[in-house]
């Protein structure tokens, strides 16, 4: 089969790879119909995530059609059109039994601090991902869901991570009616977090970024008030000014490890790998939120330490809430919101790239060329 493979920092290509095999009785093999490149894939692409091996296939956002099932699979059949959450999870461990599917303890031998994620390095379990023609899906009776008849492929693929994570991030903010919410980052997850904040009753939603075209999308798609941090000497002071010097009730870090805005932080983490991630957006979130407020972290960071302003967080009495999103837990409610027209995930898709051109796709997304917000990968194009 044809599959994207990692060749080293900033280098990927498409190769002929062995067709994935059933390795466990509850495995399924899925023929991928749509995949996406996620902002967090860029951390792998840039060589930031420890134990990212040459030859691995990335891709944790994908949908497809069941091609083969293992002998113990009961809920899926060959030919079913399925969406697969980015989390690999068993469904019955201590964490899964409590709904924390993203923290499953039975799927990642390489680390206890993170669950299993498709195509996301050996630190997240060593599973090949869905930027390929076929992919192995463990625990087929637990993870994937049949895509509802009425749902379009491009909406479904964005439910496997980006929309679910943004929606989850808004929930972590514990938003109450009339709250002021600042979302740092106008990428796909930030846009969905901003949009979801309104569903939870926010009274004002502010989005911060440095890319004008993404801020434009935040205004039109997420109905948000936007600010370009490059236009202000100090974005935290500006946030205080526009919130009557109180600060926001809730701040969401939807940027994660490669945040810009402070060259030293960015270079020391993204380029020199001396930190688990550049905590610029997280520190801005901590400083922009009011005392007693909540900071929600859904941006991804690596396992090394980062220079986070914990002193400010402690002294302000903040609540810091964070996790990888337990995607499947979000789906029933999100299906309702998509069906009611409250959310239209595919509105943020800007590029559809054939698998054979995936190297260009990574570069366009990484360098933010051509107004790129969300690139999808089409294996059969």
């Amino acid at each position: 089969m044809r599959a994207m493979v990692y060749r080293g920092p900033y280098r990927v290509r498409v190769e002929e790879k062995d067709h994935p095999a059933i390795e466990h009785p509850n495995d399924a093999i899925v023929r991928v119909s749509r995949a996406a490149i996620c902002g967090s894939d860029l951390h792998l692409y840039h060589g930031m995530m420890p134990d990212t091996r040459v030859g691995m296939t990335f891709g944790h956002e994908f949908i497809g059609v069941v091609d083969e099932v293992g002998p113990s699979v009961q809920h899926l059949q060959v030919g079913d059109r399925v969406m697969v959450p980015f989390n690999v999870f068993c469904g019955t461990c201590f964490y899964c039994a409590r709904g924390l599917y993203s923290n499953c303890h039975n799927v990642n031998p390489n680390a206890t601090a993170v669950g299993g994620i498709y195509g996301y390095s050996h630190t997240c379990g060593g599973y090949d991902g869905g930027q390929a023609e076929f992919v192995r899906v463990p625990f087929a009776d637990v993870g994937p869901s049949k895509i509802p008849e009425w749902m379009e492929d491009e909406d479904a693929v964005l439910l496997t991570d980006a929309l679910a994570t943004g929606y989850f991030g808004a929930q972590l903010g514990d938003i109450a009616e009339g709250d002021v919410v600042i979302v740092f980052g106008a990428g796909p997850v930030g846009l969905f977090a901003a949009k979801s904040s309104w569903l939870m009753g926010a009274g004002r939603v502010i989005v911060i970024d440095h890319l004008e075209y993404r801020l434009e999308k935040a205004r039109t798609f997420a109905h948000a008030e936007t600010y370009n941090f490059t236009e202000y000497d100090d974005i935290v002071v500006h946030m205080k000014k526009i919130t009557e010097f109180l600060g926001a009730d809730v701040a969401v870090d939807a940027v994660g490890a490669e945040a810009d805005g402070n060259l030293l932080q960015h270079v020391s983490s993204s380029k020199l790998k001396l930190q688990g991630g550049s905590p610029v957006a997280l520190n801005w979130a901590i400083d922009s939120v009011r005392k007693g407020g909540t900071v929600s972290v859904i941006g991804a960071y690596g396992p090394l330490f980062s220079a986070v302003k914990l002193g400010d967080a402690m002294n302000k009495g903040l609540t810091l809430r964070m996790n990888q999103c337990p995607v499947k837990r979000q789906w029933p409610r999100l299906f309702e919101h998509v069906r009611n027209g409250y959310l239209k995930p595919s509105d943020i898709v800007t590029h559809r790239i054939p698998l054979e051109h995936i190297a260009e796709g990574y570069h366009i997304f990484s360098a933010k060329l051509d107004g790129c917000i969300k690139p999808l990968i089409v294996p059969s194009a």
Partner: protein
Amino acid sequence: MTETWTYGPAKPPLPESTSVLRERIPGWGADLDPKDRPSVPKLQFDPHLSGAHWEFPERQPEKWPRERSIEHAFLTPVFGTSCPPRGLSGRIRRLAYARYSEGRTAHWLLLLGADRVDTLGSTLWSFASRHPDNLLTETGVLSELSHHGLSSRLGRKRTDTIHHPLDPLIVAGPWLLVAGVIYKALRRVARTRTG
């Protein structure tokens, strides 16, 4: 007068009332009640929710000694099988897993070091294969020409363009280093023969 709000007990007024927001924004307040939020509360005990028909999953066969964190009691019943450890990078990875917990910086630095060794070794090895690495196609840099590389950057208020020039160094640096080492070695051999 702005200080009045912050230094008094009341919360500042919103630019728009919630009734206006409900009109303007589709779905506003649909999840206002925390009971409608799927991840509230965080822990919801229900061992039968997931569709699993096991209490502890069957074990996946271990086809080679699978590296694992020493913070795990045993190899997890299911695991990924992409890219088994190999060569020098594999040895470094096995050491990182066998010796250091996830709490130790050495664990992660060894793994990052192994990644760089893997890249270098795989790139060199590729030149002896039928599919040698190609910097131009693998970096996707040609899309700069087809996807508005210049106009996406020039005249925009982007901060990331400051560090973009570092990217080619990160990609090409190891190649230049290896080329330099080979050149020096060959030169030394040539000198020894002529001298």
